[in-house]
């Protein structure tokens, strides 16, 4: 930079160098002397401004997923008020971690109107996550689930592919069909908000959250909350999940033409049954999805057996905020093979069953639902006297 050696009649000797030095000094002084904060917490106040700038056009001012673009978006933007988040590392039914939400915000959701915001300062993403968490009371009453560990990916062999094909046929084909999302249930599926929910076309290279085997593994094990896609962490072993991952990866660009896959007659390895005082059947047929009966009355200490009669996969999840106070712990203890808070295992095949014991619980009404078919009205209640 050249030397400025003279003053002007109106510039008062203003030096370019001194201007720049002043600006830089002020900037770095602010950086140096501002006390650090706990940035992992996020600030919902600042997050509100971030939300209003970047999110309202889809998710709406009130977080109800009803922004101006929502009618034209497929899939529809998330309604944050229920606290249901599809893409998590945590078990089916549970809340996601902040890291899960940050991953979705940073990377966006491929093939949807949700763009990536990785360019935003990480602090801004944490702030907006904190604000999103104000839309649902779940964030005040629950902790995020424990992330599911993704074990090291085993080698893919002909044997694991064959195993994956069989598992896929049993657990996935009713919705995903031959992998392209053309299963017999595909056109009838809706999500928790009543919107049509077409199963993913797995023959494409990219799923919404990535292209890696790890991404597919997590979607299989955690499921997609608020959709008919259940989490299989309670019903598949890690080895079985990887087998399905490898099979799904083999579908990319090579639709296998599985036209006539029949559901396996073998019962699920994880489903168990015990003697029960009351039995409730889980039914999905041309008349709809329902529990039969959908209301029973029992006494404290009795057990209720839930049986997948038809139209699975089904499961049972109790609303944490509509059971008597203090009952969550004994009820959780009385459930078998839970995959999340007050969330029973996924019953894949007809005949699969699970039992809930009401030993030590408080009298009252216990409302429950089937997570895959919540939007279809599959709910019920147990009155404990």
């Amino acid at each position, binding site marked *: 930079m050249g030397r400025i050696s003279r003053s002007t009649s*109106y510039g008062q000797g203003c030096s*370019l160098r001194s201007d720049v030095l002043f600006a830089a000094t002020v900037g770095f002084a602010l*950086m140096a002397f501002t006390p650090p904060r706990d940035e992992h917490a996020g600030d919902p106040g*600042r997050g509100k401004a*971030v939300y209003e700038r*970047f999110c309202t*056009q889809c998710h709406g001012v009130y977080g109800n997923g009803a922004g101006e673009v929502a009618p034209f978006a497929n899939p529809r933007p998330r309604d944050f008020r229920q606290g249901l988040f599809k893409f998590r590392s945590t078990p089916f039914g549970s809340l996601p971690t902040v890291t899960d939400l940050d991953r979705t915000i940073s990377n966006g959701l491929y093939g*949807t109107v949700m*763009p990536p915001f990785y*360019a935003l300062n990480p602090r801004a993403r944490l702030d907006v996550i904190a604000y999103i968490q104000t839309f649902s009371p779940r964030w005040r009453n629950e902790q995020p689930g424990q992330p599911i560990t993704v074990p090291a990916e085993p080698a893919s062999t002909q044997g694991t592919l064959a195993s994956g094909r069989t598992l896929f046929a049993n657990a996935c084909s009713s919705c995903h069909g031959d992998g392209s999302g053309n299963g017999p249930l595909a056109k009838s599926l809706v999500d928790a908000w009543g919107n049509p929910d077409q199963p993913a076309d797995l023959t494409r290279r990219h799923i919404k959250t990535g292209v890696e085997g790890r991404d597919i593994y997590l979607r299989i094990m955690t499921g997609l909350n608020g959709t008919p896609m259940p989490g299989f962490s309670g019903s598949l072993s890690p080895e079985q999940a990887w087998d399905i991952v490898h099979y799904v990866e083999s579908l990319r660009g090579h639709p296998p033409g599985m036209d006539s896959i029949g559901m396996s007659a073998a019962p699920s390895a994880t489903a168990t049954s015990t003697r029960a005082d009351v039995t409730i059947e889980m039914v999905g047929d041309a008349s709809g999805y329902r529990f039969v009966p959908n209301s029973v009355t029992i006494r404290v200490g009795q057990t209720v057996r839930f049986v997948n009669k038809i139209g699975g996969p089904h499961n049972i999840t109790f609303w944490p905020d509509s059971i008597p106070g203090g009952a969550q712990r004994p009820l959780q203890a009385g459930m078998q093979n839970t995959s999340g808070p007050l969330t029973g295992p996924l019953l894949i095949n007809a005949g699969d069953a699970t039992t809930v014991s009401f030993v030590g619980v408080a009298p009252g009404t216990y409302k429950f639902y089937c997570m895959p078919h919540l939007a279809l009205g599959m709910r019920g209640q147990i009155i404990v006297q």
Partner: protein
Amino acid sequence: MTRLQRLLLALILFGVARPAYGIPAFARKYGLKCTACHEAWPLLNVVGRAFRDNGYRFNNGKDDAITTDPSYWPIFAWVEENYQYQYSKSERHTVTNVGEVGPGFVILGAMTSLSQHISFNIRPVVGFGSGGLFFDAAWLRYNRLFDTDALNLRLGQLDFDLPITTAGERDFTTVLPGNLRSLSYTVPGSRGLDLLANPTGVEVSGHDRGSTNRYSLMVYDNNGIGSGSHQLFNTPSVYGHVSHLFQIPAGFVRDVELGAFGTYATVAVGPDSAALKPQRRYGGTFDTWLASDALPLHLEAIAFQGRDDKALIAGATHDALYDGGDIQIDYVPALPFELFARYNLIRNVTQAVPGRTGSFADQDIYLFGIQHTVEFTSRFEWGWQVYYALERDRLQAPDGTNLTQHFIWAGLLLAF
């Protein structure tokens, strides 16, 4: 007002001014409001800059022509009309006192990415006053050469990859007369080298994820500024810009970006335009965003040095050397509103022509403005802007004394 004055005013207010709006076609394509990519329309935020650096793509599977709604067309329109008032005086008398409805313009342009590798921009401008037609920009971009963000190729009539607030598509205030920016300063008697104009050239650029590190290297033709020949690249010139963004993990300062830029331009001189003589501009930039990511106080400082070869200036015995720079503040207190202020200065270090006072043609410009985007949806936006500028030019009045100029500009803008 004489015809000459009117012509000069028209040249200043339209000929030098250039459009600088958001692209509602992008909003329609992605279902986003302008605020997703602009700090304030049209100053880009970090999301918008990353989108731009990716070749106007989010890479979310919804960019390519085949994945967009068949009814979508990447067409956008800008319409602008304004009122301008200019009052200038020397130390002895009034030089100009003009106020009139300015010559606005309309643009019907096309800009989008067609596939992972191809993006384009065509921006014809029609002036309301003159009815003239010219292309503000027309380029084709090949994204991700060798499948890496570090290599992108762009060719055609391009904008320079300038410091943030001065880039043509990023700063609402570039609709101002170009001579209200230090980067547009012309040494008296020399050829203009306006970095806010869009020359013909080829650019290689690259960036990392989030555009924290980015570079642009451009070879362009400085033709058309007094050159006798109009063959392509008969005045080869180069421009470069590198920058690094620091995302601060805690505290009042949110982000800081440091950058360096420079150009070595040539001008053909002599009877047969055979000799090429250089003009140089080298400098650095400092940007910081304070207090908030969504509603930041954005401060930018630019400092540079300019040098024009003595062969470009009649009667010169030395190269003309000057320092320039500006400090600009953009603040968005609430989303529809933006306040902005800028101070520009030029200080001549070496006068090219003997006998000129050392401070001859020194310049100070103060500018204050407000912008209100009345409506901004994922389909269109419209708003208004008012600014006041005070310019002081040392010894530049017709009578040889100091020249003081006042500008008031008020405009309506619609982008669809």
